[in-house]
Each structure stands twice: as C-alpha cells, then as structure tokens.
C-alpha cells in the first residue's frame, strides 16, 4: 500500500545531503514550507542551491536558510533581503536572477520533461545579455556574470532560450494532503508550490491537514500524488501566526 505520510520531519529530510539543489514553494509568506526549512537548518545542511521566488523577508523559511549562510547559490526573482544582499556582495553566495514568470515556467518545464523553451521576457535586458553579476569576490568585484542567453526571433519578437529547472528535491506546503500525496491549496498560497513540486525529483510536502483518501474530490486535486513522495503534518505554529506577514 502506498503511504507517503511521515511522522518526523528530521528523519524524513535526513536523505537530503549537503550541496543538494532544492526548489522551495511559497510567495512572500503564503504557502512557504517553514517547518521543512527549519528542519533543514536543524539538520545543519550546507552548500545548498535554493530555487525559490523570494529569498525570505524575515528570518523564517528561506530567509532562515539564507541568514544562517546555508546557500551556495540562489535562483529566484526577488532575493531582496538584507542578509542575502550582504552575503551576495561579499562573494559568499551566487545569484541567478530570473524574471518571476520565467522562474515558474522553468520549474514547470523541469517537471514536465521540457528541457528548454523560448520566451520574450527579458530579451534585450541585462538579464539576457550577460550584463548582470552572478558572483562577487570578497572585495566587491564581479567575478562572474549571468550567461548571455541564446536569442531567436519568433513572429518578429526577439525571444530568449530558457532551460528547465529540475532539482534534486522540492519542499512545498499544501492546505490538504492525503497518503497518496494528492494536494489541494487555498487561494494565494498555491503560487509556486505546484511548479516547485513538479520540479523536484523527490518532493516533500508539509500540509496544514492530512485527510483521508477520497476527501479531496478528483476534480479538486490541484496536484496529483504522482509528483509528491513524502507528506507530513505541518506544525500549528508554522501556519497560524496572525500578524507574521505584517511585521516583515
């Protein structure tokens, strides 16, 4: 029988090694798998390549991983937190800055067996022409730039070639999950969790509730269980803090 429900987050995530690439769902503070991020920190994992829209705003979720210096590379659209800024400009972490829509599409492509696609987004900008810093040395000098992207014109519009993001692991958060890994989300907390879960070769989901098989109707499953390998009950504190977002 398939039972993807796990009891212990540390035990579940112990299969994630140092150096792993990990896609993480969430946007701002909605839908962020905070408990799973905490577990990675408690397991003392390092040198991670984190793929996520935000780098975290306050020191929770991805922000905690960043603040504790656990990243070797960050791929995302909005790494605007002070810890990240400092680490980036001191040469401690590499940045792959990606437009938000391109990021979501690259994650989906990674899970969908599409190795690359063309998009008009970013064509002609610094992010596409090899003119944006990817890494600094310790003295604030740029030592690597984002690569220049292949350009091809479709219907008169210049488009850039973007490659899929398929990662070793994914961490996501759902509203409901069952033992098969079927997931359902609420409102704006769905966001990157669907493409992130698709992108991970092994996907972990913390869920606000674990329900019986069949409670999520077939038409209401937002992501079928085939994309999810491990499910765990989210701890109350990680989703019910009332003013957490407002403080950031």
């Amino acid at each position, binding site marked *: 029988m398939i039972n993807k429900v796990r009891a212990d987050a540390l035990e579940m995530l112990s299969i994630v090694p140092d150096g792993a690439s990990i896609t993480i769902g969430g946007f*701002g503070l909605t839908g962020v798998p905070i408990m799973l991020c905490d577990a990675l920190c408690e397991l003392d994992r390092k040198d991670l390549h984190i793929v996520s829209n935000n780098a975290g705003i306050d020191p929770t979720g991805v922000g905690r991983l960043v603040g504790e210096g656990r990243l070797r590379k960050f791929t995302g659209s909005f790494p605007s*937190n002070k810890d990240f800024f400092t680490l980036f400009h001191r040469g401690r972490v590499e940045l792959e800055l990606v437009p938000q829509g391109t990021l979501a599409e690259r994650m989906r492509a990674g899970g969908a067996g599409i190795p690359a696609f063309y998009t008009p987004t970013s064509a002609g900008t610094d992010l596409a022409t090899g003119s944006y810093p990817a890494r600094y040395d310790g003295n604030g000098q740029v030592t690597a730039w984002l690569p220049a992207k292949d350009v091809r014109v479709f219907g008169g519009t210049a488009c850039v070639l973007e490659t899929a993001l398929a990662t070793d692991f994914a961490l996501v958060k759902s509203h409901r999950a069952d033992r098969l890994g079927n997931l359902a989300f609420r409102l704006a907390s769905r966001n990157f969790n669907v493409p992130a879960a698709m992108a991970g070769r092994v996907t972990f989901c913390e869920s606000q509730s674990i329900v019986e098989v069949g409670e999520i109707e077939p038409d209401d499953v937002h992501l079928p269980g085939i994309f999810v390998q491990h499910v765990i009950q989210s701890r109350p504190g990680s989703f019910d803090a009332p003013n957490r977002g407002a403080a950031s």
Partner: protein
Amino acid sequence: MSEPEPLGWSRDDLATRAALDVPDGAYVNLGIGIPMLIASHIPDDREVWFHTENGVLGLGGVPEADEIDLDMQNAGKEYSKIVVGAAAFDSALSFAIVRGGHLDIAVLGGMQVTATGDLANWSVPGRTPGVGGAMDLVTGSKQVWVLMEHTDRTGTPKLMRHCTLPVTGTRCVSRVYTTLGVFQPAGTHFECIDLAPGVDRETVRGLTDAEVTFHDDARDGH
C-alpha cells in the same frame, strides 16, 4: 526652510486620474506602490478585475484585522481580500496569463521611460537585487501604463531620450502618468495629452529630458 508645495498631482490624484482611463470590463495588474492605489478609485459603474501575479484573479481591498485570511496576500505581500467570482491558480498559470497577452493593462511604477516606450524600473546599482514579475508584465500585457513622479527626488527628469538605468523592457510603454500630466511615448518625443492643474507647458519642458509636444487637450494651468 520649508518644503515647497509639491507641483501637480498628489499620489492619490495620480491614481484617480489613471483610474478614469481604465475601461469597464478590463483585466488589470497593478504594481506595488502608487499603481495599487488605482483599485480604490475605479468609478462605481465599472467592473474591473484585478490580477495579482502570485496567483489570483479578483483581488479585493484591504481586510480589517478580523477579516485577514493568512492564505491571501497580494503581490506586495500584504494581506488582501478577494471579490466574489475570484479564481486562484498557480504561478505558472498566473504568468501564462501575463505573458500570453490576456491582461488588458499592466500598471507599473517607473524610474525612467523613453519616448520610444522603453522602461527602466527594476535595477539601481548598489540596491538589493530583485526583478519580480516586471519583465513578464511589460512583455505580455496589451497596454503598459507607468505611474510615477515626474522627476526623481533630486529633480532629475525621468522622461528620457535614453535610459541610463538597466531596462525592464523596450518599446513596451503605452502611457505614462506623472505628477505633472499624462504622456504618450510617440517615438521621437512624448505627446502630453493632459496636464495636472496648475502646471504649465514650460514647466513640463524644463523637467523633461526628452522632447514633449502638447495635445490640444493639455491646456496650460487649468
């Protein structure tokens, strides 16, 4: 030494002015900052649908403390309400909407806009990096409007012959609402189609790097 009275429209006036131009039935994405103020100024007789790139079509207003739903934030990471008939979706579909040309209008803040419609609004040297959804929005939307102060804090023009900051997109802006007036990029120049009350043409010319022409509707100091 007291601050001089600011010239032209206030931020709220600016949002009110732009809101007048949003047609009934439009699908609109509002950027963080002044653009977001537009939502509360849409005339009552119009039904306008607001898209937020984190995955909702049908964004509503700001919730009271007891109305906060932890699963519902806008793209500015503020708690938000939704309206009846809203739809939620994931980020990949959200940007399929954006990039696929389904939004009628994207309204963004701006640092520089050129007469050819280039926009710079995402990157300033030495600032925290971040691009978000801006490049997708300017690429895909049927119309891109920019709402911004006419000059930066030091009085330097923002309507430019050429961008000196990294561009977000080229030939993408259809209209610019500044504190001094409403401008359309016309290739070689901006055409001013409306002036804020108390603003005259000479002032606009003096605070604009690019050439400006004035439509008959843009009357001096009305």
